[in-house]
């Protein structure tokens, strides 16, 4: 069989593309995933990392809410190592209307979400960080999810099912014969090499950038880019998700995720051209801190690590009436019926929570086109790493008395941690001390998870995501990446890019300890190391 021929080519390495590739591969299709940058670089990696219970949508969008709670339960089963089952609170503050609580709880119950009204006292006990002034609280099955880990695990499973992945590879043309899409032309953004791949079906899973890919295929999909900004605090202030029990608004969700917590978001429409380079404005920073401090007052005096923004892949309803026919925010377009272009599918809209469902819908469509009749199994089969429910169990099975770094590895890799456990002392050396990431884990990400830059490594291992924001681990990890021929020159540039990327998220909140850390980083790289 021709190595350049596939059953389906998926464009976009976000959670939708990765989930879609996993589903297709599990149904026996020969798949290729193409991503112009790295996994989870778009909206997938630029949100709260909230494992929605659906409660937030219960009042305004009951269908989305029902979908969320269903997927929430599935993800707990199949993606245990990507998820933290924290539960969440919807709090009512004195300035809020307590009457809304009843509407909210009723809507939750209708959607099948367990929403339990609890006493403010109990809420204060459950979550000591919560604003003690609260006058009402509802407990819901919210949680947090690590989108990078989830995306990587989906892609890894696709690879285990024979899928192929090309990262840092850009689609330069969608190849058509008449009204039939036959493949894609791509260019490797590192080497500049061009290639052509063919497949009877090409799937556009590029989120906001799907508008551009659709243009390449000669069809029109109009997106509505809405920027959302968020702040990362340096440690977990809260251990439960805290939401405001009111009509969804700005900066009203605080999510504990891994070692940090995240407040967000804002919402601003931006021109499509700005999607590639969104920045957090000072006004947004102020708004996020002000509103966040109403959820958890200690945020007003907690060190902030960084600010970041993402663009929601909302589909513009105005000039795309057909998109609305598919409800629940998920937009799955068969361009054959919609535009008369055969072999081209767009899957967009939706949200992180419903990625699996989106993948299932789109894969069903692809299978119909290819005449494949195989049922979806992604709701039952655990992702690689998620075979055990908790990292305690994982660590206990591998190590007699796990060290903190080994426990941390188990919490990130799940059962896959056993693959790095046999390393010698050289592989146990810590590369990142803030997040306790060992050399073995970094090598695993390079060798088995397609990481080729420091930023890739960050998404897969959390290096550079901790307190020092890469000051200490970046050059250690760069030395490991520099191993391949010609790798050092590339790594030198990569290191500069990485530090730039970290700084971009630091300077909008560059005061106090963050400014001290930044000054230290400047000294080390410019004056001590001579980068």
């Amino acid at each position, binding site marked *: 069989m021709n190595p350049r021929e596939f059953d389906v080519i998926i464009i976009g390495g976000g959670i939708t593309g990765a989930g879609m590739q996993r589903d297709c591969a599990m149904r026996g299709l020969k798949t290729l995933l193409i991503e112009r940058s790295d996994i989870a670089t778009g909206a997938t990696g630029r949100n709260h990392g909230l494992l929605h219970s659906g409660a937030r949508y219960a009042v305004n969008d009951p269908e989305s809410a029902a979908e969320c709670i269903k997927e929430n339960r599935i993800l707990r089963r199949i993606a245990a190592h990507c998820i933290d089952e924290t539960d969440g609170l919807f709090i009512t503050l004195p300035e809020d209307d307590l009457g809304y609580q009843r509407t909210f709880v009723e809507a939750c119950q209708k959607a099948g979400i367990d929403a339990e009204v609890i006493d403010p006292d109990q809420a204060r006990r459950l979550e000591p960080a919560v604003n003690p002034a609260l006058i009402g609280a509802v407990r819901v099955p919210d949680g947090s999810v690590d989108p990078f880990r989830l995306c990587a695990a989906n892609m890894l499973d696709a690879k285990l099912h024979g899928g192929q992945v090309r990262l840092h590879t850009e689609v330069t043309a969608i190849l058509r014969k008449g009204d039939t899409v036959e493949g894609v032309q791509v260019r490797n953004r590192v080497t500049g090499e061009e290639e052509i791949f063919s497949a009877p079906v090409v799937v556009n899973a590029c989120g906001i950038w799907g508008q551009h890919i659709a243009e390449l295929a000669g069809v029109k999909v109009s997106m509505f880019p809405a920027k959302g900004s968020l702040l990362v605090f340096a440690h977990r202030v809260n251990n439960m998700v805290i939401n405001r029990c009111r009509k969804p608004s700005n900066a009203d969700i605080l999510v504990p995720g891994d070692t940090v917590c995240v407040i967000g978001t804002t919402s601003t429409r931006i021109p499509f051209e700005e999607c590639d380079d969104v920045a957090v404005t000072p006004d947004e920073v102020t708004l996020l801190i002000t509103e966040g401090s109403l959820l958890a007052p200690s945020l007003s005096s907690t060190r902030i690590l960084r600010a970041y923004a993402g663009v929601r892949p909302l589909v513009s309803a105005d000039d795309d009436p057909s998109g609305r026919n598919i409800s629940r925010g998920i937009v799955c377009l068969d361009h054959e019926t919609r535009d008369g272009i055969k072999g081209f599918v767009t899957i967009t809209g939706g949200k992180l929570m419903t990625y699996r469902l989106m993948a299932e819908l789109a894969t069903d469509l692809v299978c119909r086109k290819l005449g494949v009749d195989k049922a979806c199994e992604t709701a039952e089969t655990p992702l690689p790493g998620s075979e055990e429910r908790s990292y305690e169990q994982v660590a206990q099975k591998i190590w007699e008395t796990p060290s903190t770094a080994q426990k941390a590895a188990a919490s990130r890799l799940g059962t896959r941690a056993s693959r790095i456990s046999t390393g010698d002392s*050289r592989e146990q050396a*810590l590369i990142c001390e803030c997040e306790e990431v060992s050399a073995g884990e970094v090598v695993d990400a390079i060798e088995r998870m397609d990481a080729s830059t420091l930023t890739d490594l960050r998404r897969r291992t959390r290096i550079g995501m901790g307190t020092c924001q890469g000051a200490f681990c970046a*050059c250690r990890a*760069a030395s490991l990446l520099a191993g391949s021929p010609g790798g050092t020159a590339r790594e030198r540039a990569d290191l*500069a890019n990485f*530090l730039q990327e970290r700084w971009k998220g630091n300077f909008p909140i560059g005061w106090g300890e963050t400014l001290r850390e930044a000054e230290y980083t400047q000294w080390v790289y410019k004056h001590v190391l001579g980068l």
Partner: protein
Amino acid sequence: MRFDTLIIGGGLTGLVAGISLQKAGRSTAIVSTGQNTLHFFSGSFASLKEAPQPMAELFAEAGIGLHYSPGVRLMPMGTFREAELSLDDVSIFSTSPFARRVLVISFPGYHEFFHPFLVEGLEKQGIYCRVHMLDLPELSRLKPATGEMRSLQLARTLDTAWNKLVQEIRLVLKDEDTVILPQVFGLNDPSVPGRIRQGIPAQVVFVGTFPPSIPGIRTQILLKRRFEVLGGTYLMGDQVMEAHVHDGVVHSVVTRNLDNHYLEADHFVLASGSFFSKGLMSNPMRVYEPVFGLDVAAAEDRNDWYNPEFAADQPYMGFGVLTDSSLHPMVDGRPLKNLFAAGSVLGATRPELGTGAGLAVNSAFAVADAILQSDTSIR
């Protein structure tokens, strides 16, 4: 407790000023929040070439070797920089290329020395490089439980095991004319780097590692020891919380540890460093000097503190306290008569005094001279 001079900050600036004053018979105390930025010292005194006479003397008396010759020095990332006055650990090359064949030594599991970048930089110059990962039984002991092999652990072991290392290197050395080693020698025994140079029949070049810097820590140890031998009082791990100032004269300071036991002096020196050392502090509203509330040269609008490009010069790093021509800092434009500012708390407000370690030394001597020339008591 009363001193002639009290210095806030125990880094390079504070120590150089303290030693100069103590040497001249002035009882001096240094209050230092903890250890300092000498721990991240590159080994070269930015903006200084030849050492001024008092500096050469002071460092020699402390047992710290300095040298300078026109040329370049090799940075840890394999780049070259114009040479500046440097510790003896730092090699200065006057010819290019400085070697034809180089043996680069590192240690397995040691991630603080970036030999791939070093080699790439040298190969660009047409220098042939061979990397040898050297394993000594003494070093394997360092790795197990914590999985960390950092420069400090290495340096401690090599302070005693250096001769074994020299023997090993002699065995692996072939036709190379130069041996490059990470700067992990002479933490407590300053003679070790020199002995290694003597023991290896090739040019030996020590190249910097990721901080903490072993030559930097050694410099700190030697300067502090010198200050104390001269009778100076070094209060380590204490922090000046506030000052008592009346009519433009500082009378005493309050420290965290000594609470209501105030420290009094005729002269005070603010050598508290920049942001990292909390000589300057910042919040979303402003940049300020925390002890005296001094006038600070800093952009008002936070957006002007930064350059969005990491690689560019960062405006905030130039912020510093404002001083009159005699290095007296000011409150509301009025100088404090017996307070002097020195070192990086000045930021880039006094470019004529240099930058970095050069600024530290130049301003420390300027302040010490000013104190020695003024009346013992101006109060």
